[in-house]
């Protein structure tokens, strides 16, 4: 066998090994967390409070994660969609557009811990709010807004110009065209973008340590509906340790048996949620695509 062919076969084998290795590592990680959380991760774990006496749960922390997620999306999605509409439909090639794009690039490269410090200075100290869910959401807005804007812009740009021309030729105004023709066609792309953003928000921890806080809530009174009372879990002004932050916090508390078990299960929960977000984004995107093109 000639040397050249031998080299070709070796290289092919090496490439296969690299690919198998990477996939095996991923499966290993998922399997590790599923095994480590076996027996703990159940409905009980999802709703109970963390406690030292027995293996507790992550109820309040999970609630905080979802709370911060929803609050961040409420802030990010409308702003991001409007900004994306401008970038795709109105923006020319002027200096303003260049500045916006540079800022988008810059902010998506700023380390999340630095965004957390910024949040600490602005939304915790300067406002005198202290650690709040709102402060955490605003910090998350900082680096998710450019992402949401860009995803919306991409989804809108993917809509063929014929659709716009057709609508404008019928005498519709520009806004009417965007609102009733372009935007509906871009919905599948935008929804996929929202779900992917949500996955990122759910896993973020570094930006939240200094903004939504580290205190583990012992128990929440869900009957307290006073939105300005920091003790109410429904208030945007309550300190909100999220699931990701909770896992990080476990590492500074020594690896006691229960700490480890609870953190392992929390990590498993995070991984499963991320898998669900991913599959959800794909599935829902495809479903909506069929709806839109079928309609």
């Amino acid at each position, binding site marked *: 066998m000639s040397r*050249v062919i031998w080299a070709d076969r070796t290289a092919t084998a090496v490439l296969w090994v690299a690919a198998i290795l990477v996939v095996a590592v991923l499966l290993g990680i998922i399997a590790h967390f599923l095994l480590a959380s076996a027996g703990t991760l159940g409905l009980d774990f999802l709703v109970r409070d963390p406690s030292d006496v027995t293996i507790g749960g992550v109820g309040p922390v999970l609630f905080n994660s979802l709370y911060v997620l929803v609050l961040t999306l409420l802030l990010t999605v409308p702003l*991001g969609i409007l*900004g994306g509409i401008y970038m795709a439909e109105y923006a020319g090639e002027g200096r303003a557009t260049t500045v916006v794009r540079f*800022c988008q690039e810059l902010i998506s490269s700023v380390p999340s811990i*630095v965004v957390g410090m910024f949040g600490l200075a602005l939304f915790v100290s300067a406002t005198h709010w202290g650690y709040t869910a709102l402060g955490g959401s605003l910090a998350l807005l900082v680096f998710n807004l450019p992402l949401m804007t860009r995803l919306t812009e991409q989804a809108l740009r993917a809509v063929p110009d014929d659709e716009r021309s057709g609508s404008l030729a019928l005498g519709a105004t*520009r806004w009417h065209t965007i609102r009733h023709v372009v935007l509906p066609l871009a919905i599948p792309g935008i929804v996929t973008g929202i779900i992917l953003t949500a996955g990122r928000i*759910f896993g973020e921890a570094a930006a939240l340590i200094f903004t939504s806080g580290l205190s583990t809530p012992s128990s929440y009174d869900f009957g307290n509906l006073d939105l300005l009372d920091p003790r109410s879990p429904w208030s945007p002004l309550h300190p909100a340790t999220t699931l990701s932050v909770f896992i990080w916090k476990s590492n500074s508390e020594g690896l006691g048996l229960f700490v480890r078990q609870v953190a392992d299960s929390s990590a498993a929960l995070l991984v499963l949620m991320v898998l669900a*977000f*991913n599959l959800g984004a794909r599935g829902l995107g495809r479903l909506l695509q069929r709806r839109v093109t079928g309609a």
Partner: protein
Amino acid sequence: MTSPSIALPTPLRRSLTIRERLDLSRRVTLAAATTVVVLVALLLAFIAWNGVQLFTASGVPVTQILSATWQPDPTSPSTTYGLLPFIAGTLAVMALGAAIATPLSVALAVFMAEVAPRWARSITQPAMEVFVGIPSVVYGWLGLTVLVPFLRTNGQGLGFSVGFSLFAGGLVLSLMILPTITSVALDALTTVPTELRGASLALGTTRWQTIRHVLLPAAGGGIVTGVVLGMMRAAGEALAVQMVIGNRPVIPTSLTAPMTTLTSQITLDMGNTVAGEPWNQALWTMGLILLLISLGFVILVRRLGRPRRAA
């Protein structure tokens, strides 16, 4: 008009009509788009202002941060705010992460672009997406509970005393930046014109010769951009690294010994220090240095040429 030959496409270049200027929807969406500019301006201002307080308010000489001694305790007789161990640590762990991840990522990208049959691609593609999605604390927790104890028990002969080490940090980071480098490199490889592939193969080369001598050189720029983006992510990663490197403020000299990084120290000390004291101000200076590092990376990526789809 003397030169009618070069007519600019008027719809793109004309200035706005009054009607367009007054268009409410245009103004509302413009306001939303410029929010990011306001946020960037605020962020730069806050980090820069707080980052220089160590020098302006506390009178620490700027050159002191280049010292290798980190002795922030105000009660100690020789308080020194040397940031060199953190800067060196960040650079070391970033370089190690990239060094481990790059060969694997490029191999994976080449595999996905050139070698993989359809069924294999339908596994690697979603696998990459899941890799990107796994939160960094999960990687950190995995490093802390699996990798570090493993190194502690099995690495004694190699010099791992406690398991927490530069190597552990680099390995965890390499996993995190692997999908970034892979996806950008894959983009670069798939945009190499098919003609180049065909021309090379028509000369009777093997697939590997085509990859080695045609595709990799042609996609080289894109691959380098991918590596730089990966390094950017590595430099800014905080929690996963903090959990596995041991957090000892020394200039890293060994793969097997504990060390620390800018992000780790900020994570650990921010909550224990009081705003306004020099120790706290030094942390803000570290934040400013991180910001400058990422600014440098953004400019570098711009000069290298932006990939079509950034990961």
